């Protein structure tokens, strides 16, 4: 790969992170009327970003996946000893690729499917800014840098929901006045995540002061695995980190922002939210919370496992009660992320690997589900499953992909979703030695029951939405089946779902060594 | 003599001034009360100067500055009161509650 050597020493990753942002700024300067130009630039930059990330992946030395590679460390805020320190290892690489890839698809989808009020300029630049935040979080190796990128996603998503979101007015329990869904959802999303991250920042600072005044994640990991952080201090720090990440994941009972945000967000917003934003939280656990505070991770693991198990069951049961298609899918994310967290909480290489593939798979599958459901909501102008039905007849292509994705989402073996669920259960059965086996096995059983419930609500959803005869109100209407833009955005995800399902080495090949090294370092096993 | 009576008198004058600004309705009267307060500070400075036998006369100089500033404040205060009066036909500060909430 010598021909790409100019992308060494962090340049490639830097491009991956900042190219979208630069393009976004560039787009700001283009007059609003040049819509096509804006779209093309956006797409171009997203594709270039994706290609560069592919090149980075090619350069990545998979035999040494446990090591952080292709990074750099440049002084950033010298007065607080914070650096522009980036790099990727086997854990972050798949997520980075996922992020750049989904962004491209989201932009392709947006070409013809801008929600009201159109404004391509705004939407495109928000997507690009969002991409920078997401990519940045996955490559950042400095707590402060991580924090900045982690938070960078808030604003674009807030506006995406708030401006392009669902405009129906609904009543909200506890509030006297009815409120537009998008407004409620956007502020809820924002406040929740900010609440978590404000405390997370305090935790970062705590680490900084106890850890020789460094924000560098690798250095802190070194310190943490050597037992530098102990006692009440560590408990507090882990608590706030947990809060910060758990809100994002989201773990029960901090999940309540998610159904609202997903339901209200425009299609692309839900896709990006589900596919990547949620991963920031779980990635944070794997990258920061576990290795830096291993002792605390062990102490907290049972609690996390229980919460995950509750999340799985809770999310699935909540799904069964939904009438709103997107809300159902949103709640399904609670359940699926529960599996991811269950895997992480086992603190074994199996569990964490499961979490990694679970993240990627959930990103792909739920992303696709939101694509499809968003598109359907757009076509039918309703998300009420009671009114839908016979979708397979009305929109065969969309329906087929919906069915496929639902199957993938329920963890069908041979498709991507299977590995995360199965392996998470596998990990939870035998957690790290020293953890309370009863709790974990109970959680595993709960998770296993969750798989049945998952199958239940997804099939039920399919039955209500896809199958049966179309309702009268749709029969004479002209409904548009998936067009080419949509198919171009969706088919790659379908293919990826199958590929990862059949050949999980695509993910495990990268993550396994890194995860083993992480577990060995942090927990000695 | 002891410095204490002087200081207590100054403190008393200060409190009287405070009472004045809290009770008076007419803005001009409030300004008068403020002068009392400033004057009490002057007494403090001069008395301390005398007590310390400060050869640099810091206290006296300070009080001269205070007097000057006080004069300026009065000027400003009156200007504002005048402006208020123009607009409201009253100088009672307790009637200015447009921005209660």
């Amino acid at each position, binding site marked *: 790969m010598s021909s790409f050597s100019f992308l060494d020493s962090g340049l490639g990753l830097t491009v991956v992170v900042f190219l979208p942002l630069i393009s976004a700024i560039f787009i700001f300067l283009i007059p609003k009327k040049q819509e096509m130009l804006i779209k093309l630039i956006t797409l171009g930059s997203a594709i270039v970003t994706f290609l560069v990330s592919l090149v980075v992946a090619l350069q990545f030395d998979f035999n040494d996946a446990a090591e952080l590679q292709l990074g750099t460390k440049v002084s950033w805020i010298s007065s607080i000893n914070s650096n522009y320190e980036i790099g990727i290892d086997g854990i972050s690489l798949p997520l980075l690729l996922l992020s750049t890839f989904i962004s491209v698809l989201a932009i392709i989808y947006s070409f013809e499917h801008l929600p009201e009020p159109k404004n391509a300029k705004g939407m495109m630049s928000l997507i690009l800014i969002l991409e920078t935040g997401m990519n940045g979080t996955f490559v950042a190796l400095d707590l402060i840098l991580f924090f900045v990128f982690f938070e960078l996603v808030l604003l674009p998503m807030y506006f995406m929901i708030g401006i392009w979101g669902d405009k129906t007015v609904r009543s909200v329990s506890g509030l006297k006045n009815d409120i537009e869904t998008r407004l409620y959802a956007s502020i809820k999303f924002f406040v929740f995540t900010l609440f978590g991250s404000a405390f997370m920042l305090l935790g970062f600072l705590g680490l900084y002061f106890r850890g020789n005044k460094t924000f560098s994640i690798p250095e802190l990991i070194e310190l943490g695995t050597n037992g530098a952080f102990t006692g009440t201090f560590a408990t507090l720090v882990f608590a706030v980190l947990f809060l910060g990440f758990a809100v994002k994941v989201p773990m029960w009972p901090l999940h309540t922002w998610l159904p609202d945000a997903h339901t209200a967000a425009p299609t692309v917003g839900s896709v990006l939210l589900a596919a990547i934003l949620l991963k920031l939280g779980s990635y944070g656990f794997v990258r920061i919370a576990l290795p830096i505070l291993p002792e605390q991770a062990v102490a907290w693991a049972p609690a996390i496992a229980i919460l995950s198990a509750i999340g799985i069951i809770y999310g699935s049961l909540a799904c069964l009660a939904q009438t709103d298609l997107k809300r159902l899918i949103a709640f399904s994310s609670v359940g699926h992320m529960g599996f991811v967290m269950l895997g992480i909480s086992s603190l074994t290489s199996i569990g964490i690997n499961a979490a990694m593939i679970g993240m990627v798979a959930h990103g792909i599958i739920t992303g696709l589900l939101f694509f499809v459901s968003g598109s359907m909501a757009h076509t039918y102008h309703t998300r009420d499953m009671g009114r839908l039905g016979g979708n397979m007849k009305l929109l065969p292509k969309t329906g087929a992909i919906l069915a496929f994705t639902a199957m993938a989402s329920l963890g069908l073996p041979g498709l991507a979703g299977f590995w995360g669920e199965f392996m998470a259960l596998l990990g939870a059965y035998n957690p790290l030695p020293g953890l309370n086996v009863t709790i974990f096995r109970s959680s595993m059983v709960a998770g296993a029951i969750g798989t049945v419930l998952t199958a239940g609500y997804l099939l039920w959803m399919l039955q209500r939405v896809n199958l049966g005869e179309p309702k009268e109100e749709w029969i004479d209407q002209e409904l548009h089946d998936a067009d080419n833009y949509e198919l171009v955005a969706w088919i790659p995800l379908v293919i990826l779902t199958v590929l990862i399902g059949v050949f999980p080495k695509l993910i495990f090949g990268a993550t396994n060594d890194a995860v083993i090294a992480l577990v060995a370092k942090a927990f000695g096993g | 003599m002891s410095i204490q009576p002087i200081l207590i008198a100054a403190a008393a004058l200060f409190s009287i001034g405070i009472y004045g600004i809290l009770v008076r309705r007419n803005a001009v009267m409030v300004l008068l009360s403020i002068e009392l307060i400033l004057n009490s500070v002057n007494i403090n400075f*001069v008395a301390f100067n005398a007590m310390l036998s400060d050869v640099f006369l810091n206290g006296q100089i300070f*009080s001269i500055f205070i007097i000057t500033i006080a*004069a300026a404040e009065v000027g400003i205060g*009156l200007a504002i009161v005048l402006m208020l009066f123009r607009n409201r036909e009253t100088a009672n500060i307790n009637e200015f509650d447009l921005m209660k909430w």
Partner: protein
Amino acid sequence: MEAIDIFSYFLLLLLLLSGIKVVTTSNVIHAAIFLVFTLATTAILFILLSAEFVALVLVLVYIGAVIVLFLFGVMITRAPLGPNAELDNDQNKLFATLISLSIFGIFTYILLQTFDSTVVISEGTSTKLLGEILLSRFVFPFELVSFVLLGALIGGITLARKDNALMDEDQI
């Protein structure tokens, strides 16, 4: 106790009484006059404390200029010149008394605790020295204070000036 001490106590008593009158009298003109009285008493006190120059400034600036300004202000705002029961905000009185008394209490408590030295009465003037110090060590604040005055002057005039065109426009 020396005579001058008795005089000083008397002076201080006078100071306080006139001060109280300033804030309690129901006649605006009386208030201004009592202020003059207070300031005059203060000036005498300053002379006793060997601060002749300060006393002089006090008399010149306050009694000469400021009081006139006050009276002017009283006139121009057409405050009732006779006794006026509405001059005070009765509602505030209780609290005002409490507040001022507690401030007085705190101050006195601390002052009595801290300061118990004596002061030398009437040692002699030091005006020349004062002038020298003022124009050497304190020349910078001296310059600055001129800005304060200038600002007050300019701003005061601008604000107080009657500005027909503007007023009419805004008051519609």
